[in-house]
Every structure is written in structure tokens, then in C-alpha cells.
């Protein structure tokens, strides 16, 4: 019983983290039509920012400021938002594909820094001993997992309610107009570029928050936690759940993460250990097929925002 509860809380914390990131992507893509291929880079920015600010000082790195957990969270959002502003300012006035290419560049850049700037990021070994909040009171067991789950779920609920309110606010309505018909929005005097930039930056901040939550839950981050496959998983979550719908983003996170975990268990149990390293890429291929199949069969996803035109 305790084992099941332990695994369930572990699983659900991940669902909550992914859902927060997927909500950020939904604001960018679902609500505004901005295509981000570098989600992993924004998540990594948040994770590294918070980890480096809160970790205790170490001799071999220039980081470890021992700041409180909350400060790390806020800084993670701010930093990811700044990176989002940078990508947005570069491309949001240009062809739509250029944002995609630039966000891809951002993720490559962040990955390069994480891999190689050893003095700052620990290089391939990553950052270890990232503080886990409140562990002195709750210990390291199930109680802590459940408390972290409660906090993540609360943050997710906060993000969800905030985004739902934004959606129905005048600001959100302008975003939808921009998504459907940019010229119409411009003709009623809305500064399309600024609205897009705001939406992109806020979405990036949510991704940074997700990254920070990940770092403090696992307690250890390394460059290979933020490979393009992460971007891809988040996209799969949004597309399967239905882009444009905040509830869909959360549902998609649960479905795709469940699917991913199950396929991992399947591979571990059914494929001989000698073949497992070789078969790991197949897990990626399965998710890739899932995303393409959803696009082909049900382009709006499970809970897609009806009445929107694609493209």
C-alpha cells in the first residue's frame, strides 16, 4: 500500500510539473499561435537558475548562493522569461517559422552551456545536492513526497486559474483575435507584436517554474535531463490533450506521461537486459508516432479548442 502511494505521489508530482510546462506552451501556441521548438531550453534555464541560487556553496563552482527556495523559484521564472523576451524580440515581427528556428537555437545554446561551462553548470555531471525544501521537518520519505505533491498541485491550480481568467480577460480575447486573424487585430488598433511578446514571455516563465520544481524535487539536474525529447514530450502532451484548452494541457500531461512511464516499464520487463540500451530510442519513436497519429486522426486533440482554424 505504501509502495503504491509512494509511486503514485512520485508519478503525480511529475504530472503536475509537466502540466505547468504544458500550460506555458498552451499560452504560447494554443492561445497565441507562437511555435516554440525549444521548450527544453526554457525548462533548463529555470532548473539551473533555481538550483544554482539555492545550492550551498561549493569549492569547484562559481555558484551556490544558499538562497531560500522561494527566491530560487522567482528567479527561475524571471530568467526563463528573459530568455523568452530575447527570442521574442528577435523573431516575433518576422515570418512565423523564424521563431521556431530561434527557439530551437535557444535550446541548443542552453544545452551547450550546460554541457561545457563546467565552472558554472557542473558540465556533464550537472548540479548535485539541490536543496529539497522543508526536508528538515518532513524527512525524506512519503510525507515529504506528499507535501511536495500538494505544493506542486497548488501551483498548478494557481497557474490554471490564472490562465483561465486571463483567457476570458480583454487581454486573452485580443490574443485569440491575433491567433485567428492578425490583420483584424491590427486594424482595431491592437499592437500585435507587444501582445505576442507578452504571451511568449509569460509562457516561458511557466516553463522556468516547471524546471525549478523539477530540480528541487529530484535534487539533481544534468544536461541530459533537458534534451529535445523533453520538448517533444511537452508537445505531445499539448497535442494529445488538445491545444487551446488549459484543461486539455493538464489531461494530456497525465495521458502522455502515463504512456511514457508504461512504455518504459514494458521495455524494462519484456526486452532482455542486453538489448535495453539499444531499445531505449524506441520509446522516443513511440511518442513520435503518437504525436503524428494524433495530428492525422484528431488534429484538435482530446479536449481541443473547437472552432479554431489551424495554421
Amino acid at each position: 500500500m505504501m509502495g503504491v502511494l509512494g509511486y503514485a505521489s512520485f508519478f503525480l508530482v511529475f504530472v503536475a510539473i509537466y502540466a505547468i510546462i504544458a500550460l506555458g506552451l498552451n499560452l504560447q501556441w494554443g492561445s497565441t499561435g507562437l511555435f516554440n521548438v525549444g521548450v527544453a531550453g526554457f525548462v533548463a534555464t529555470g532548473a539551473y537558475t533555481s538550483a544554482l541560487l539555492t545550492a550551498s556553496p561549493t569549492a569547484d563552482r562559481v555558484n551556490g548562493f544558499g538562497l531560500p527556495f522561494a527566491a530560487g523559484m522567482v528567479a527561475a521564472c524571471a530568467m526563463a522569461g528573459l530568455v523568452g523576451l530575447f527570442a521574442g524580440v528577435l523573431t516575433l515581427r518576422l515570418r512565423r517559422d523564424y521563431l521556431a528556428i530561434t527557439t530551437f537555437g535557444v535550446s541548443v545554446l542552453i544545452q551547450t552551456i550546460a554541457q561545457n561551462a563546467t565552472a558554472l553548470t557542473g558540465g556533464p555531471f550537472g548540479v548535485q545536492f539541490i536543496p529539497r525544501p522543508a526536508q528538515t521537518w518532513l524527512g525524506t520519505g512519503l510525507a515529504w513526497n506528499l507535501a511536495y505533491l500538494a505544493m506542486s498541485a497548488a501551483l498548478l491550480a494557481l497557474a490554471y486559474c490564472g490562465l483561465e481568467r486571463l483567457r476570458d480577460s480583454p487581454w486573452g480575447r485580443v490574443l485569440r483575435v491575433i491567433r485567428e486573424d492578425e490583420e483584424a487585430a491590427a486594424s482595431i488598433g491592437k499592437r500585435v507584436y507587444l501582445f505576442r511578446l507578452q504571451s511568449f514571455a509569460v509562457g516561458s516563465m511557466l516553463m522556468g517554474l516547471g524546471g525549478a520544481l523539477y530540480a528541487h524535487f529530484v535534487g539533481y539536474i544534468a544536461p541530459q535531463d533537458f534534451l529535445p525529447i523533453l520538448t517533444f514530450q511537452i508537445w505531445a502532451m499539448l497535442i494529445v490533450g488538445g491545444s487551446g484548452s488549459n484543461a486539455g494541457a493538464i489531461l494530456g500531461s497525465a495521458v502522455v506521461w502515463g504512456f511514457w512511464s508504461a512504455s518504459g516499464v514494458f521495455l524494462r520487463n519484456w526486452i532482455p537486459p542486453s538489448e535495453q540500451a539499444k531499445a531505449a530510442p524506441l520509446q522516443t519513436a513511440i511518442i513520435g508516432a503518437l504525436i503524428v497519429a494524433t495530428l492525422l486522426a484528431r488534429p484538435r486533440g482530446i479536449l481541443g479548442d473547437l472552432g479554431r482554424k489551424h495554421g
Partner: protein
Amino acid sequence: MLQLVADGIIIGSIVALGAIGLSLTISIFRFSNFSHGELMAWGAYLALVVNGMIAAATPLEPFSFGWPLVAATLCAVAGAAALAVALDTLVFRRLRRHGSITLVIASFGASLVLRSLLQYWQGGVPKYYTENLQIAINVVPRSVQGGLRLTPDQMLVIGLMPVLVAALHAFLRYSLLGRSMRAAAANPDLARVAGIDPERVYRATWILGGGLAAIAAVFAGITVQLRPTMGHELLLPLFAAVILGGAGSGIASIWGAVLGGLVLGLAESTAVTVLGAEYRPVAAIAVLTIILLWRPNGLFGEKSA
């Protein structure tokens, strides 16, 4: 100094050939194909497999490889072209009416699937077409600008790139199919009215793009090595080269892509010398940032996006 320029031109030749194919598909289909790098990687490995199946032959002096690799490259061209056409038939064609961004997402998905399958099939360890070690030839003595040493293989890559581009230019300029492609790129509706079959143009574009990708990838395999992630690593330089050259500016965009490729190659060889090999990707990001800030329509792009 000379060596840095020569290294840049070698990398640049590979990027240029890949970027031409990418630029063609962007001109015709009007979406950024994120799976183009995987066409390259698959092309390189197809050549490796075919090369391995043909009985070993003595190398074609002075190059490190024998005639089997030449035959294997032709097979890889056919294979990558077929893969491109298959991707279009299975995925892109069905999504075309949803607009360009849906196609970008699908191509991103397709690239991950193709890369994972390649990793599954070939493993992650770098491979080489030949075990033969080539001795670099002293082209320019050390006393002049630090000297210049090149292997015959590298010289072949540098020499073949302009030949291929000139052939492609002639094809687009003079052949009926090439002219149809230019017409479809300039104005799809008008081309259709003039009786040009769009499906024929689409097929030709994928075949050309895939074929060039395979040749570029074999060049990369000869001069560097084969890795399942090579396509992914080339993707950002390819995009930067295409944007630099002015994506979708008709026949000029193939020369734009060549120039873009060479600039990217030089930027990469400079970054490797100044910052170290591990910071190679920074070059493409820097070029991309500068071009987007300074001339977002590219050096040859005229119309505003």
C-alpha cells in the same frame, strides 16, 4: 589563418549542399522542415551500409575510399530521395491543408522518430567509411600565413560542391521541370493556371532535396565521421544558412544558400579555433542572431516576409 579558412570552406560546402535542399523545400512548400537533417543522417548511413555490402576494393588513389563508396553514394541519394517522398506521402501531404505551422510540428515529430530509429538501427558509436588513414598534403608551406594542409578527400569535397551547384543551377534555369519548380515557388496559383502539375513539382523537390542531403552527408562522413545525431547537429547551421541566403527568393536562393553555408562554415571553424570544439554550435546561433537583427530577409531576400 589559411587553414582556418580552408576548414571553414569544407564545413561550409557540406552545410551549403544541405541548405540548398532545405531552401528548395521551404520555397515550394513554405514550411521549415525540421526533418531535413535526418534525411542527411539517413543518407550517410545508407551509404555506409551499401558500402559495407559491396566487397572491399582497393582505394581509388589518392582518395581514402574505393569505387564501392561511389556506388553506395548513388544508392544513398536514391534512398534519401525515396525517404523524403515517403515522408511527404505518409505525413506532410495529408497535413498540407492545415497550414505551415502544423507541418512544422509534424516535421519536428518526424525528425525525432527518424533519429531514434537510426539510433536503434546503428547504435550511438561514431562510424567511418574507411579505416584507411589519409596523409594530408602540404598545399601551402608553413611560412605563408601558417600554411595549409589538406587531404585529397577534403579537396574532392571542396571541388565537387561548385560542380553540383552549377549543375543544379543549370537544371533550374533551363530544364522544363526546373522551370516549373521555379514557377511554383514564385507563384503557386499562377503556376497551376499555366498547367503545371503541382504534385510533379512537389515530388521533384523532395527528390532533389533528399538527394542533395545524402551527398552532403556522405561528404560529412568522409571528412568527419558518421553519428546518428549528425543531422540534428547540422540542423541549426542549415537553417542559419538558409535565412542568411534569403529563404524563398527563387533561383537566387540556391546561391544564397551556398553563400550562407560558406559563411556558416567559416564561423564554425573560427568558433572552434577561438572557443574550442565544444562551443561549435555557438557559431550558428551567433550568425542567426546577427542576421535576424540586421537583415531578416537575408542577404539576397528582397520581398518583406
